[in-house]
């Protein structure tokens, strides 16, 4: 059965158009980040990311080398320098010796540079500075020029992040935090959600109300009281107050309200008849739960798994407070922040780091998509 065959051409076209529009708007900002991550660091903060996609002109300054660089040639002395990186396709458009004399000279011919020398600047950035007498300066004078830069990208930023010390370990640490911290809350929430949806006991609605209310509790207010409690338990039982166990417990606790709420809603919408008939047939709630409800709830479980994984993968605060920050315990986000630097100016690290970090959640998202199957209930309603 496919709804598709009965769609008219126009309605299909409208559908595609709307989706394309929405997707473009949504990805445009992210595209900016992607482009920035392959750009040079100084460029990042001086020109918009869209300029990197086309040739753009810039005005720059270059300091000529000191007298040490001179070589003797037939009719005097020469200092050669190359303004651009080898292999760059940039082209000089004009140049001058003062910042406001940028359009004085064209590239190509040798031009009087100062009282005793001439300079020829070729369009490809080769500068030949010639003088009849020996150069004696200690500090090279500056050359101002305008140039056209064609789009140029590099993966250096990514290399820097991937090769940084401790990134492999941070990756494993984050997995160690994220996997149980995703699985355990879902397990606990699934049982609780089923109880709230289909089991009869005193205080059902009260607990449901409480759980909805708890979704709003701000994380920051919980940190100190709970940490104090852990410190107390830690000192009484002589165990460390911060460890992987504590961070799993914390993520579980903080993730439960939303999990229970979402799962309960889904389970409550499952057809009453199938559960009742199974109960009549003598199945216990536990069996009904494991054999029927869990499989039927896969879409909801998968949805929540995506979010919980995402939240724990990208989290920094809970890990910093409950796992501690000892050596060997840093998580990916912490690693990125450290690379970002005390001065917070290593934008290029952030841009590439953000994309490296996003890879795993996207993989999780895609792999859990197979649980979003349609028609799980097909046929199950009519007499099972």
């Amino acid at each position: 059965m496919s709804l598709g065959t009965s769609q008219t051409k126009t309605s299909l076209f409208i559908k595609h158009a709307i989706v394309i529009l929405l997707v473009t708007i949504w990805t445009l900002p992210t595209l900016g980040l992607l482009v920035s991550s392959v750009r040079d660091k100084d460029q990042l903060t001086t020109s918009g990311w869209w300029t990197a996609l086309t040739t753009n002109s810039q005005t720059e300054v270059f300091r000529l080398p000191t007298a040490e660089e001179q070589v003797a040639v037939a009719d005097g002395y020469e200092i050669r320098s190359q303004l651009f990186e080898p292999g760059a396709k940039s082209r000089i458009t004009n140049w001058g010796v003062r910042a406001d004399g940028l359009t004085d000279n064209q590239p190509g011919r040798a031009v009087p540079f100062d009282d005793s020398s001439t300079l020829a600047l070729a369009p490809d950035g080769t500068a030949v500075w010639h003088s009849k007498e020996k150069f004696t300066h200690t500090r090279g004078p500056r050359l101002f020029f305008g140039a056209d830069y064609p789009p140029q990208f590099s993966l250096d930023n990514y290399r820097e992040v991937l090769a940084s010390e401790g990134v492999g370990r941070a990756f494993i640490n984050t997995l160690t935090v994220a996997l149980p911290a995703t699985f355990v809350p879902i397990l606990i929430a699934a049982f609780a959600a089923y109880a709230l949806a289909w089991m009869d006991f005193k205080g059902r609605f009260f607990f449901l109300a409480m759980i909805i209310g708890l979704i709003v509790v701000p994380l920051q207010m919980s940190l100190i009281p709970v940490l104090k409690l852990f410190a107390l338990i830690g000192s009484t039982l002589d165990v460390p107050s911060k460890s992987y166990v504590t961070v799993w417990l914390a993520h579980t606790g903080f993730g439960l309200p939303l999990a229970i709420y979402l799962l309960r809603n889904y389970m409550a919408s499952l057809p009453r008849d199938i559960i009742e008939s199974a109960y009549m047939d003598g199945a216990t709630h536990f069996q009904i739960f494991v054999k029927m409800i869990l499989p039927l709830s896969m879409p909801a479980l998968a949805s929540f798994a995506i979010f919980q994984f995402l939240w724990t993968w990208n989290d920094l605060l809970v890990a910093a407070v409950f796992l501690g920050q000892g050596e060997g315990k840093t998580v990916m986000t912490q690693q990125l922040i450290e690379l970002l630097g005390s001065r917070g100016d290593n934008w290029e690290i952030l841009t590439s780091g953000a994309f490296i970090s996003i890879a795993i959640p996207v993989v999780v998202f895609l792999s859990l998509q197979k649980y979003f199957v349609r028609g799980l209930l097909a046929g199950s309603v009519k007499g099972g």
Partner: protein
Amino acid sequence: MLQQILFAFTAIFFAIGGSILFYVGSNLLIDKLLGDNGAPPEKQYRRDKLREQIRPWIFIGPALLFLSVFLVYPVFKSLQLSFWDREGENFVGLANYIWAFGNAGFLTSVLNNLMWLLFVPTMATIFGLTIAYMTDRIWWGQIARTLIFLPMAISFVGASIIWKFVYDFRGPDSEQIGLVNAIIVWFGGEPRALISILFWNNFLLMVILVWIQTGFAMVILGAAIRGVPEDTLEASMMEGASQTQIFFKIVIPQIWPTIVVVWTTITILVLKVFDIVYAMTNGQWGSQVLANLMYNEMFRNGNSGTASTVAVILMLAVMPIMIYNIRSARNSEQ
């Protein structure tokens, strides 16, 4: 490195294994202890009744334990601290609450949060629903959905950089590196320091949350849409219903409870919005929100009394939503 991986595997195995063991174990245990053992019917009936009375508590027990420790206890602690002074040493009664209602920053935050509440949940739900429905049966639906999901996956640190590159402002003679200002200049206008524009800057920040939360709405609603029974859809198609009619008259009513859940969840998350405001403006230029105010009071001013007061007020604000949800849950049961 290898040791690290080994440790990780063992840890994950025990954590997950241990939890499963608890549930399976406890259920089997009560089945065994209170199961059929050949006793007379009335006794058996009572055993059954007892067993089934205990079972819900096994199901919900661990959850309640976690919630009490991690959330309920801090709620009470916050409540208590809101009546105490800045260091938590002396009782001050309602002084903090009086401070709050007289404080300009607090009142601005309340107004701003209200604006956020009106704008974000609605927009995110509408967009999420639209995308979820439209991408359901087109061939590149999965790709589209992944791209809409991307903002949720990007860590908050990455998101703040992305939007910095969108809202950035440089002086009128400089090249603009922010997308919005570049567009303004391209159309011939003067660039503005966008995030410092009073009142409108709030909307600029709200856009960011909608951008992120639409992915959330899309995933949940997408699952719900796929849960609509095929037969119902087939039947209405046979009867000649149009696409629009099917969407509004069949699909939406079927997934209405989920729409409410999504809208509720996003509303509650909006009340808590903190990271975005903290990173972009830190509440300056009239963009303060309650959660950021609470953070400032707690960690900048070192005042646990006022911080807790803001937290308590925040938590009270969610009451109407709670009541609405319980009512509709009760009604759907009757």
